[in-house]
């Protein structure tokens, strides 16, 4: 009897142990991302050798300072456009012109690419991109080259909420994420942060023909941390929306101090009103530029209460809804533009911040969509589809405008920040593909040591059910990307000879050579397969030497390089291009050679600069 009792105890004990061991599975029972139909997915992303992708994706390179160009859906990295940092591969930042454009900064934290638009649709002309040191660059999509860097723009500090363009590329936005006492260089102790530190929202005016950017307007704002923006379109055209966190005006450890209020704001800027005020000569001169003070110029900016610590704000394709998410919440809010306008008309304000009227959340809200934890950004598809990235959930939720219900949710690997759908922020989104720009890749790739790439995952959104198609890995750090139909771009393949009006260009080999004026020597050099003319030239120690190289090729892909050893000089000259570099000669003999492989006798494409001692 006793032994039988003991046996039961043993059996129960073992059962209990077994049961206990089943309580904690060794892996999450959440479906592992990537469990899609492999064969179908492979077919969707396969672009046969020699075939072309139907879409370009322009991804910001974050603190690498570059823009990366991908083909979608192959997710092949095709090209890198250097913007805010020297890039030896294309000689960017080594010749006089690009060095001058970069200025003293050889680093920039690029964030939000913005393709130029006509009537709210991508027109394939330019790509704008901001960086944190108060600058915005324009890339010409005719040759994929950075053509202008404006800034650092006065008074703006930490230009994160940028470079979102208006529907006809009238303006690109800038704003301060890290408010400072303005003008720059001023001082105020941090305990005066709430009153003496100022934020700025600015509009960069864009010339409709040349794309040249100039400062259009600046608006003086409370010291909130302005974060992300989007321009109104169609019914809401004429407005800019920018999120702001730390409306507590706190300092110190912001993760706590800036997370105290239940709601922060989206600033709604009537940019046409700001434009008019500037035209009327309004504004105070601060840091050398006119700044509009909303106290003195009412009606240019309003504050919309939004979920706590918002990050992204995105306007629906029809312009009716402004989607703002508190990143510490489980819902995203759709604000109704008509209700915002009605509230402004009836002056139904709950108060003000430094003279800027604050609207009432309940009166402008259309719906709250329970998308999931940590909603950041929303992009759109056709037929009212919306896709919201969920950082905390590490997932993407799809939902429908008007119905305000979540349709599908798919896990991503891991911790998605921005997301991009094909033409997904225009008036006419394409659907088809979504790229999840994830912050962490956690070893879903061959191990490359502790410095890990980010991951960009391609997701099929052509059906209601989202399907993961492919993983690709991107250099740090894609903050935002835009996907444009390939047939909207018509880049050139060579710089046509007749367009080269460079004063130092030489197209005739017999006219190449060296001229001297005092101690300034100009060497006009022709590069063509497979030689430099002249292949040697002599200068004197201490001379100021200007080397101007013209690549007289008109054949596709026939680039030549000019590497001058021991001078930190490395140019790459595209077919039909002239590049110039100026330096002081030091005594010795210095070889120069073609760095960019050109032809069978590329290796022989070399020469010497001999420098006579004084």
């Amino acid at each position, binding site marked *: 009897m006793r032994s039988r009792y003991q046996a039961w105890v043993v059996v129960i004990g073992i059962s209990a142990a077994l049961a206990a061991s089943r309580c904690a599975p060794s892996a999450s029972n959440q479906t592992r991302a990537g469990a899609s139909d492999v064969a179908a997915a492979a077919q969707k992303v396969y672009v046969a050798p020699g075939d072309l992708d139907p879409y370009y994706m322009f991804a910001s390179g974050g603190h690498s300072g570059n823009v990366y160009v991908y083909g979608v859906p192959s997710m092949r990295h095709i090209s890198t456009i250097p913007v805010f940092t020297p890039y030896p591969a294309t000689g960017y930042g080594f010749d006089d012109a690009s060095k001058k454009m970069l200025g003293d900064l050889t680093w920039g934290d690029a964030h939000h690419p913005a393709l130029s638009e006509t009537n709210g649709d991508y027109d394939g002309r330019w790509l704008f991109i901001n960086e944190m040191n108060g600058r915005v660059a324009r890339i010409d999509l005719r040759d994929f080259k950075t053509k202008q860097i404006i800034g650092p723009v006065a008074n703006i500090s930490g230009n994160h909420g940028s470079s979102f363009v208006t529907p006809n590329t009238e303006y690109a936005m800038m704003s301060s994420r890290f408010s400072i006492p303005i003008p720059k260089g001023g001082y105020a102790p941090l305990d005066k942060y709430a009153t003496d530190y100022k934020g700025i929202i600015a509009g960069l005016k864009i010339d409709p023909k040349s794309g040249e950017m100039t400062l259009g307007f600046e608006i003086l704002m409370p010291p909130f941390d302005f974060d992300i923006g989007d321009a109104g379109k169609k019914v809401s055209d004429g407005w800019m929306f920018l999120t702001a966190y730390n409306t507590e005006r706190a300092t110190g450890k912001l993760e706590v101090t800036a997370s105290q209020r239940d709601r922060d704001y989206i600033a709604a800027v009537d940019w046409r009103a700001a434009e008019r005020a500037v035209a009327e000569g309004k504004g105070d001169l601060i840091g050398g530029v006119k700044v509009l003070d909303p106290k003195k110029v009412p009606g240019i900016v309003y504050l919309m209460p939004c979920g706590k610590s918002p990050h992204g704000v995105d306007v629906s394709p029809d312009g009716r809804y402004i989607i703002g998410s508190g990143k510490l919440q489980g819902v995203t809010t759709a604000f109704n533009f008509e209700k915002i306008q009605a509230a402004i008309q009836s002056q139904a304000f709950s108060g003000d911040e430094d003279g800027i009227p604050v609207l009432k959340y309940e009166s402008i809200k259309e719906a709250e969509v329970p998308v999931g934890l940590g909603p950041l950004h929303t992009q759109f598809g056709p037929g009212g589809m919306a896709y919201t990235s969920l950082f905390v959930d590490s997932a993407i939720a799809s939902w429908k405008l008007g119905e305000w219900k979540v349709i599908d949710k798919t896990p991503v690997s891991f911790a998605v920040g921005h997301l991009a759908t094909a033409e997904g922020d225009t008036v006419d989104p394409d659907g088809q593909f979504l790229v999840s720009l994830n912050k962490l890749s956690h070893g879903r790739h061959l191990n490359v040591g502790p410095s890990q790439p980010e991951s960009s995952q391609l997701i099929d959104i052509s059906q209601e059910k989202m399907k993961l198609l492919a993983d690709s890995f991107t250099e740090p750090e894609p903050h935002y990307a835009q996907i444009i139909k390939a047939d909207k771009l018509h880049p050139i393949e060579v710089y046509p000879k007749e367009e080269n009006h460079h004063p130092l260009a030489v197209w005739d080999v017999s006219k190449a050579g060296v001229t001297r004026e005092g101690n300034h020597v100009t060497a006009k050099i022709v590069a*063509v*397969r*497979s030689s430099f003319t002249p292949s040697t030239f002599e200068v004197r120690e201490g001379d100021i030497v200007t080397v101007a190289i013209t690549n007289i*090729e*008109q*054949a596709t892909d026939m680039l030549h390089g000019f590497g001058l050893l021991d001078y930190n000089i490395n140019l790459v000259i595209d077919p039909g291009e002239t590049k110039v570099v100026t330096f002081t000669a030091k005594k010795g003999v210095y070889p120069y050679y073609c760095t960019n492989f050109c032809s*069978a*006798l590329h290796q*022989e494409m070399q020469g010497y600069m001999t420098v006579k001692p004084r």
Partner: protein
Amino acid sequence: MLALAAGLVVLAYFTPLWRLTMFAPQYEHGLQLDIHSYTLEGGHGGQDIKEINLLNHYIGMHPLEAEDFDEFKWMPFVLGGIALLFLRGVVLGTVKELVDATAVFGYFGAFSLWSFAYKMYRYGHDLAPEAPVKVAPFTPPVFGYQRIANFEVYSYPRAGTYLLMAVGVALLAALVLAWRRRGTLASVS
């Protein structure tokens, strides 16, 4: 018939006579060179002739330049002359004129072909001795296909030559007609 031939001759002036097409792995769309009675014309808006010359400089070949072709100076006039000769035949309408015109045209055709072949021979044989790449002297194809180093070279007549061939056919037809009506002084035009 002769009037038609004269028209065709004039048309031949406006159309290319011969085309050389060259393919290599890195030139998958081919490089084209069209020979007209008065000039050379490169494909891709003239870029191809520059590219051909650029490549040829490696083997020491003279650059192909319209100025080097004396043919381009006299050929248009000869074509015009032949057309006039044909028209003269039309007006005078004698078999004698027809035979003269045919003889001149035949000589012109044969001479032009020889001249073209000889030019090809000279280009392929007068190679600069200091050229970076030494190749055995060669004659590019006058007609048909030939492989030269990494290039497939095709050489075929174009519309202008076919027009001139049609002229030849027209002349022969006229001769045959004239032969049948021999004895009569009926016009062969």
